[in-house]
């Protein structure tokens, strides 16, 4: 079947032909050959170090010498989940709570535009909206966060606009409210796109059938469209929730003194406090939370919607 150039042709071509024919007949062998470089890279550069890092969460640092000690212990986790000093529990709770608020906000904001794109807009308008949603997603994250710092500052455009409208200034710069707003802003496209994809797949005939059976607009929405869009909403929420949960920059640039996130505590422990084991232990909190979330999301069919 493949090639039979061994008899004729140059010896180079013959050798090449034999090699390619050999591999063509053995797809698994070829796949393994192709897999070695990328998997070797991921395993060596990333996974090994990641596992070592997370395991170091079960060690402690000698507070005197700053060296990591060899014994295995749950001390870091005791400190995180301590009920006497709830600092770390509070910060974890604040992070999870804001991530959840951002997710709900984005779901509410994303639904109308996703619905409009999927089921109302002409293909031209849809293409335009697609670009308008996609470009902010890919433009610089730090710049988008910075833009809000400029907008929300005391003499910024928000208070100027409120003043023109005769309203009192809203001094929300450097608060948790500001963080909620900015997170909702930066991750919104991640919610719009999967919801759009889910809504686009709802067959028109389902909606017609619902109407024929006497359901009014809202009933059709609640009992037909919303359940079918749910996998898309859950898929989007994976992004909005886990990206907020792991963030470090926005609390630094937008948050105030009480706006610490899990990421900020990790950062401080790697840098100033030089306590990598504690940082590693605390890093497991978002990893476990997201892990649990992903399992629930899979149950709800989110991965088929991605």
């Amino acid at each position, binding site marked *: 079947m493949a090639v039979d150039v061994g008899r004729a042709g140059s010896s180079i071509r013959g050798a090449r032909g034999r090699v390619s024919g050999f591999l063509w007949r053995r797809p698994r062998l070829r796949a393994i050959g192709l897999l070695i470089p990328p998997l070797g890279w*991921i395993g060596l550069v990333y996974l090994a170090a990641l596992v070592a890092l997370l395991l170091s969460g079960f060690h402690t640092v000698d507070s005197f010498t700053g060296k990591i000690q060899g014994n295995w212990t749950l001390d870091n986790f005791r400190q995180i989940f301590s009920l006497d000093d709830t600092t770390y529990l509070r910060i974890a709770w604040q992070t999870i709570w804001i991530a959840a608020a951002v997710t709900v906000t984005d779901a509410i904001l994303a639904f109308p535009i996703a619905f409009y794109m999927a089921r109302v807009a002409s293909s031209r308008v849809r293409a335009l909206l697609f670009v308008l949603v996609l470009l902010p997603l890919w433009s610089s994250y730090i710049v988008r966060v910075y833009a809000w710092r400029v907008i929300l500052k005391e003499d910024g455009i928000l208070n100027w606009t409120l003043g023109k409208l005769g309203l009192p200034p809203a001094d929300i710069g450097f608060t948790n409210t500001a963080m909620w707003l900015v997170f909702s802003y930066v991750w919104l496209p991640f919610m719009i796109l999967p919801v759009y994809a889910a809504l686009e797949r709802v067959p028109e005939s389902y909606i017609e059938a619902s109407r024929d059976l006497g359901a009014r607009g809202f009933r059709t929405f609640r009992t037909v469209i919303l359940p079918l869009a749910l996998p898309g909403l859950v898929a989007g929420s994976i992004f909005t929730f886990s990206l907020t949960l792991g963030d470090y920059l926005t609390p630094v640039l937008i948050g105030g003194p009480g706006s610490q996130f899990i990421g900020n505590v990790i950062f401080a422990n790697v840098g100033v406090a030089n306590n990598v084991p504690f940082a590693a232990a605390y*890093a497991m909190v978002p990893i476990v939370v997201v892990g649990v979330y992903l399992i629930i999301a899979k149950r709800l069919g989110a991965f088929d919607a991605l």
Partner: protein
Amino acid sequence: MARGTRIGLLVGTGIVVLFLWIPLVIIGVYAFNESNIQSWPISGFSTKWFGEAWDNPEVRDGFWLSVKAALGATGIAIVLGGLLSFALYRFDFFGRNVISFLVVLPIALPGIVTGMALNRFFSAVSLDLSLWTIMIGHATFCMVLVFNNVIARLRRTSPSLIEASMDLGADGWQTFRYVTWPSVATAIVAGALLAFALSFDEVIVTYFTAGANNTLPLVIFGYIREGLRLPAVNAIALVVIALTIIPVTISQRLTRDTGVLSRE
């Protein structure tokens, strides 16, 4: 659909589009602010901050470092992501899901965790933090973008094309060169452009892999945090937005059917 619903949807859509774009437009306006005080409305029109930003060696060095790191990371990501997609597209086995999961991990875990892990690897093999470590780190999380784009294209390409080529006597290389390559080239370019945009923007993983070197986003981050040279930051911000929008737009055009986020 009821008229009220239609109007409601239109209003909701309009609000979201404004919400997404107003901050970007405002940064664009501030970039041309004459005054060095960041209040609204701006006091006058000037392009001087672009020149000032470019004359600042920190900014310029950061810019070139970012470009070099992004180019290197994209190059590595093309090779690794490409190999991975060619290895996996014809198989549907349990391992495929595991491997797809492993490649997403560096981008799915919080940046700070990925940064710490990479940092740990570099210190374990005693590699000093430099341009090279930034490239290696960025390539690790950019690989998945090339992989996703190329595998989506490969799965849409009919395998009978390759069989036909082999039956007609082409060897593996010729088949790759004349059949496979033309069908995946634009997907590779599209994935590469996204990888470039992602690498060029990245902050937190870079922080852990750059050592004393500052890429452009790290320079911007430092200025914003310290409240330094903010007028120049506005100008840089506008340029950075433009620089990431261009590759993404091209990438989108190249993969209208199989783009990483497109569903068309």
